[in-house]
């Protein structure tokens, strides 16, 4: 295995969340602009000072990030787009960090944002991918809910997990979300309510599902010297991994790409699972969070259900997980769902998380997963972040 180069000298700063809205008439451009300006303001920069931009969005059409660049009046020597859904944040970070390290760009603003008009979700699904069109939607058009229900059905049959096990993820995240003024879900959730929820696609029920909404998230990637010069709290990147279409011959997706590369992630960071102070998994559905807990080495394969039973996943617990409430309780603002955990993790390790702050948080792991093309999520990625002055 070729040694991976460390991320020395490049840091993450200026985490920004634009509070989500269930429905909004505003465009993705509007939401992205708000997030971008928030990050630049935090860094004392104006738009003309920015030379790098990475955008993830499902609702820019008919614009691409090129149209967006001119729309926002930016002049760039680095322009990237990461169309990887929930893996977009970590992947955008990986690209930007290397470009900054190499001196190809000074500051990259990584931004994800999406509109959510009444018909946005239906239009998104109707033209998602060839395989979705040919091999998924004609079969009941259950969308991702049905695709992940099949996955959850197979996972439960294989490992004996019960609905209560998945419910524990949702319940703990809701407890975290009640501390987060930006979360769209404002009421407590009990395990009984989770079990009794309206069925969507067996065994998936209402509280297994995220709420699509409009919103945006952003952070900046820059040299450590720049961050210090601007007096910005910053997070270091201790390690990252990325893998797409892992295990294509697995009949059902019971493991994701992290299982191929988790060892390398810890090796880069020079630490192990017990050194991680908080974990942000991509929680489009609780079953995927359980899969990430296993594949990222916190427990053996198939052992996530007993693991979750044995730990407290709230911000005051012994295994803080999805500390802002995750997408299940905060909402999924399209591609910004792939940034939510990462932006919150930057806040956590720099002591800026406020009401959801995990005491003494030094190292955070962020995991991304995305793009269910037909029967499985194709994209996966993960990163370990550490507080800047630790």
């Amino acid at each position, binding site marked *: 295995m070729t040694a991976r180069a460390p991320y020395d000298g490049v840091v993450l700063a200026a985490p920004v969340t634009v509070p989500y809205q269930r429905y909004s008439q505003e465009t993705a451009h509007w939401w992205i602009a708000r997030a971008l300006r928030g990050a630049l303001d935090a860094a004392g920069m104006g738009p003309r000072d920015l030379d790098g931009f990475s955008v993830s969005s499902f609702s820019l059409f008919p614009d691409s990030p090129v149209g967006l660049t001119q729309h926002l009046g930016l002049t760039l020597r680095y322009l990237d787009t990461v169309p990887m859904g929930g893996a977009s944040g970590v992947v955008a970070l990986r690209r930007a960090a290397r470009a900054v390290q190499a001196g190809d760009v000074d500051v990259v603003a990584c931004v994800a944002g999406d509109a959510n008009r009444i018909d946005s*979700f*239906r239009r998104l*699904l*109707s033209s998602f991918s*060839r*395989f979705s*069109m*040919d*091999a*998924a*939607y*004609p*079969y*009941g*058009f*259950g*969308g991702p*809910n*049905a*695709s992940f*229900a*099949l*996955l959850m*059905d*197979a996972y439960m*049959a294989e490992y004996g997990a019960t609905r209560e096990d998945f419910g524990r993820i949702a319940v703990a995240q809701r407890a975290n979300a009640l501390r987060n003024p930006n979360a769209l879900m404002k009421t407590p959730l009990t395990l009984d309510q989770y079990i009794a929820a*309206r*069925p*969507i*696609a*067996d*065994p*998936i029920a209402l509280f297994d599902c995220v709420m699509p909404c409009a919103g945006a998230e952003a952070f900046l990637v820059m040299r450590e010297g720049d961050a210090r010069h601007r007096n910005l709290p910053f997070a270091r990147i201790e390690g990252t991994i990325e893998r797409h279409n892992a295990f*294509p011959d697995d*009949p*059902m997706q019971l493991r994701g790409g992290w299982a191929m590369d988790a060892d390398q992630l810890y090796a880069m960071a020079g630490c192990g699972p017990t050194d991680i102070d908080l974990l942000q998994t991509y929680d489009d559905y609780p079953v995927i969070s359980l899969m990430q807990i296993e594949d990222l080495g916190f427990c053996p394969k198939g052992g996530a259900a007993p693991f979750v039973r044995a730990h407290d996943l709230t911000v005051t617990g012994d295994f803080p997980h999805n500390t802002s409430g995750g997408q299940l309780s905060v909402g999924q603002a399209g591609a910004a769902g792939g940034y939510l955990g990462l932006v919150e993790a930057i806040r956590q390790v720099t002591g800026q998380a406020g009401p959801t702050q995990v005491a003494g948080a030094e190292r955070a792991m962020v995991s991304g997963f995305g793009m269910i093309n*037909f*029967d499985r999520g194709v994209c996966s990625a993960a990163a370990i972040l550490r507080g800047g002055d630790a």
Partner: protein
Amino acid sequence: MTTPLTTPKRKDPQKRTTVPLLPPLARSRAALGLTVAATEGRFALQHCADCGAVQYPPRDACAHCLSVALHWRDTATGAQVIAQTTVRATIDPYFRERLPWRIGTVKLDAGPVAVVHLHGDVARGDRVRLALHLDRAAQGVIVALPPTQTEAMEDDPLMRTLTNHPRHRRILITDARAPVTLPLIAALQKAGAAHVFVGEAEGWRRWAGRDAIAALPGVDILPLDVTDEDSLRTLASEIGGKTDILINTARFIRPGGVMGQDTVFAREAFDTNVLGLMRLAQAFGPAMAGRTADGVNSATAFVNILSAHALSPDPGFGGFGASQAAARSLSQTLRAEFLHSGLRMVNIYVGPTDDEWHQPLPPPKVAPGALARAIVDGLIGGVEEVFCGDVARDLAERWQAGPGILEREITGGGA
């Protein structure tokens, strides 16, 4: 266990008829291979000519070796259900009306994994037999069926949408005098048809066999002349709203090519076989198209009987053959025009039939009973293209392989 369908209640005339909706219609070009296979009742997938890997979902390059030499081949139908779900919420209007809807993931013996419709009698862990059927959008979809026949399995609500089963339906057969009509009535009633209307042109002209049809229970003989628009309009106003399947058996056939003839027989052949089809579609099509979501006895199919020589003519029946080619072309246009209603346009291609006009021809010829069975089997199977009999199947195969060569083989020069 499938609950058998019960006889539908009489329709309440004060209630608005459910407007037909379609499941998702769009497919990539590669995926249309599934649709073509479904029209013929075949289970076919792409096989890589270089490494043999079977592909699903349909695609443009082999997922194992990147070869672009992918060919559609009949494929082993065995599979195992490895996951299942019941969809209880959807934003799609077609499926929303039909919830809850069961789907599953299957691992094919042939290799790939597929998301499929589940018949009510199968569940996770079961071995299944896969089949390709046309859904209401006339696109090929995979359904997981019990490996052997189970009781009333065709009455599963899923299968009713994927087939044109005669059970509980009211059928119009357009020409009582056609030799196929009598055995066709028997086959339809055996399949559970609720009622059969039979059209008769020139009722003043007596013909042997009329009494046999008139004596059958559940059958009405009514005036119908495919060369007369008024006749069709009148009949449609009476029974158009309760015609669930229309089977056009009207056919004018005479031997003769082009040279040494006048155009009289050809004109009659076109008037009956081509314009007759147009008139029938214009008279009965709109009501049928409006009723494809009208409960158990919804309108479902318009069936055409064509000579297999519609593909490539027999010069001994050149005028007739031209009318068949024209009718085939019209049926393709009608298929497109009926697409958004969910009404199926079914073509039954048959070689020379065993009747007076083919008397001098050598065997094999298709007996009326065999044609009748092929029609009903085609309706039960939900297919759109049926090739009935050895001659029709042979012509179709040779036409697919090389239409130019087939033409020369028929017209002379081929030893």
